[in-house]
């Protein structure tokens, strides 16, 4: 039993369970509540759009985080370790894609100016990241600089808007055709 714990479970656990782990858990719960709100209580996006946006961001997260946080590039570390760990599962599968899905809900709800939306949403994401860094040490920068994050979020939100607009127009055409 101890061998299983040492070989299989221990490498996935945090080195110390401190403020950054609590931060991940708290954010994950908050994001789940937000997702519940925008999907069950006040749903504006179609389920097809929700699946599309979620998968796009899960893919983006998987690609982006492994590219940026793993060797040979290794610009920063997340949480405690330089490899995947339990809290990364919450971050990559709930926090990152869930937050963008929540933001895209408001994009569909009331956005008239795409550029303003991209700038504001990128600034919100950058502000959230700075809180997680300076108060909870969620990320440890190696060769990464904070302003790279702002540029990265502008890229993420621009690609989300482009993806959503293209995906929505394809879905709209199909829905119109199939409703006849």
């Amino acid at each position, binding site marked *: 039993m101890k061998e299983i714990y040492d070989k299989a479970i221990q*490498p996935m656990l945090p080195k110390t369970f401190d403020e950054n782990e609590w931060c991940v858990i708290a954010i994950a719960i908050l994001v789940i509540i937000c997702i519940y709100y925008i999907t069950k209580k006040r749903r504006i996006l179609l389920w097809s759009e929700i*699946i599309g946006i979620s998968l796009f961001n899960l893919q983006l997260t*998987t690609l982006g985080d492994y590219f940026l946080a793993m060797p040979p590039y290794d610009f920063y570390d997340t949480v405690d370790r330089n490899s*995947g760990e339990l809290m990364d599962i919450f971050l990559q599968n709930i926090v990152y894609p869930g937050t963008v899905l929540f933001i895209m809900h408001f994009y569909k709800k009331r956005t008239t100016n795409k550029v303003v939306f991209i700038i504001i949403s990128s600034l919100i994401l950058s502000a959230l990241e700075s809180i997680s860094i300076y108060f909870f040490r969620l990320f440890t920068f190696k060769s990464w600089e904070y302003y790279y994050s702002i540029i990265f979020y502008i890229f993420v939100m621009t690609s989300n808007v482009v993806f959503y607009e293209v995906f929505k127009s394809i879905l709209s055409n*199909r829905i119109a055709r199939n409703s006849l």
Partner: protein
Amino acid sequence: MLLVILILAFISIWLLVSLKLLKKRFDSIEIFLLFMFNSYNGQNFFYLLSSPYQHLRVVENHLPFWSARVHYGIVLPVLLMWVMYVLKGTGKLSLKISLCILWIVAGVLMDKMLLVIGVLESKGKDWYPSVDMVIAMTVLCTGIYFMDILPSILRREKVIKGEGDI
């Protein structure tokens, strides 16, 4: 190593083009969403669950990194799409089960091949194919479940027509 990534890139382009042939049984939106799901799922499981362990890791260099990305992000997911294509057909159950097992075994054998050619490395005492088989089974089962629930969601929102129209 450059040759390895070139071969993998060629195979992945060829496999991506082959996705067009799946249109006989899947709608193009379904193909897109299933591929995105399989690709994310495969990469997530293989990377996140293998990186903390010593038994199988990607060699920390540029070309092995991108070779592994192409392998887990395109090659394996597209092959899984072809398994799903057969699963959606009316073929014998024994054929379907055999193909699922074949995909799992092929995944493990490809891991071994990547280990031999230097894309992956094993820092532990042994390489445990059973670990990779469990991961592959999880990816396969979640993929099949997603394939099962997706059409009804798309049909309900009139994104796709009835099954007979595809």
